[in-house]
């Protein structure tokens, strides 16, 4: 079993990238991936429309795609929307400081509290601190404050290893790792039990992500299976 937890479908207006669910499913077949977590491009501000694209995709490919929805913490009706998406079958929430609310804001904390009640993991699509002005202090305070919430930290580049080492409710995906060796370095302090295979497709490739793990002699067969699927299955209660 192989699960790729980081895939975007819909429209990315920044790079004019269009990606359909059927294109993703075709790539999954070629790369030997059984299931994918999908969510909108976080660069697209019209997340309601883009969440609908994801909803259609998970309805069409029930056995292959797992949907996360994107949420802007600034919306007054945020919690009502989150309850609605949960009812629609979404399994997690994706948010991003680019929506204008930092990790320190009351609204951001409310989003996390709502995810806690809904028993959903929170995907922090945070980009890196240098280019996005994301500060680690408020981010780590958030993670400490809500130990019952499972966070998936996609970016933060080199800082993500230190953050995940300190906060046991943090999972990392492999998308920002430039090599399998970089994943192996993260594993030493963090452990393989909190690493998820994620390609960041369509910018990344599903096949590349599998090969990054496969080539690493540092991982045992069991550890590879943790990264390939067992951690995602446990986190998402599959």
């Amino acid at each position: 079993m192989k699960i790729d937890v980081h895939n975007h479908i819909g429209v990315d207006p920044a790079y004019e990238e269009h990606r359909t669910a059927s294109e993703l499913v075709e790539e999954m077949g070629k790369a030997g991936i059984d299931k994918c977590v999908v969510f909108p491009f976080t660069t697209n501000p019209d997340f309601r429309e883009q969440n609908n694209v994801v909803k259609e995709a998970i309805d069409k490919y029930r056995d292959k795609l797992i949907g996360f929805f994107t949420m802007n913490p600034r919306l007054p009706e945020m919690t009502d929307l989150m309850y609605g998406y949960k009812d629609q079958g979404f399994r997690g929430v994706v948010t991003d400081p680019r929506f204008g609310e930092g990790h320190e804001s009351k609204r951001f904390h409310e989003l996390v509290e709502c995810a806690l009640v809904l028993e959903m993991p929170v995907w922090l699509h945070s980009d890196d601190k240098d280019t996005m002005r994301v500060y680690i202090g408020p981010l780590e305070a958030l993670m400490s404050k809500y130990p019952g919430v499972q966070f998936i930290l996609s970016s933060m580049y080199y800082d993500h290893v230190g953050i995940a080492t300190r906060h046991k409710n943090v999972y990392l995906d492999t998308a920002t790792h430039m090599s399998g060796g970089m994943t192996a370095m993260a594993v030493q302090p963090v452990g393989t039990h909190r690493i998820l295979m994620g390609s960041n497709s369509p910018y990344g490739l599903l096949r590349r992500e599998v090969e990054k793990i496969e080539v690493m002699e540092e991982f045992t067969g069991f550890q590879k299976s943790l990264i390939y699927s067992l951690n995602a299955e446990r986190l998402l209660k599959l």
Partner: protein
Amino acid sequence: MVIYLVLDMHVHLTEERPDAEWVWSNWPGEGRRGLSAEVFIEKMDACKPRIDKAVVFGLFSLASETPEAMRRDNDYIMRLVEKYSDRFIGAGVVDPSWGEAAIKELHRFVDAGLRVVKMRFSSMHYHANNKAAQRVFKEIGELGVLPVCHSDWTHYSHPLILGDLASMFPDVRMVMQHFGEYLSFDAISVCRKLPNVYVDTSALVLPKNIVRFIEEVSPDRIMYASDTLSVRGGLQPQDALNRVTCLELPKKQEEKVLGGNAVALLKSVGVKL
């Protein structure tokens, strides 16, 4: 069957150090850094496709504690190139923070036969477009050798800063190593405007940008590289090859990326292949 030449543009080789020195310089549990020529040749031969040749340079003198450290690293590389002339193309390291001593070292190893110059501005925290860097580049232009410069997301080695340096020396062809790492879109933007800038694929996070580079910039200015610097872990040559081969490029394009472009560029600065 692979009949073309596969050339790794980016490998750091280091002398074996006594165990006591490693204990002194590394925390317990940290992996031992460093890679000998013999171990890397084994890796080259084990790779699929096999790596025929590699551009090699030092590691510890990227920011040099003394000019002597630079010389020591470069002497080591020159000895290796002499010993394994069929596998290695040597590059000398220059730390521009040493000013006149750096220029002197540049001339010394070019006189000795090296035609490639490695610089890593993030190591000594120099902006790539500063006066010291410009001074080294001016000499490089006069010597007709090839600078290969580390890139990353810091403001020292940011693709736009490296591009600024390259734009001051339009007759000097420069390799932007790592393709900007996380900033590969910025690297593409720079290369689209500057025909004298090439990229290597080591440490590239988004492999599809290799295709984007070929389509939007040039099929001739992108080269396979691994940035291997350790026996295990980190960046390794097979993983780096997979980064290219997973794209399933048309055969001719893949041949150019894996070796053809590097051969043409190295020959153009006088490297005998």
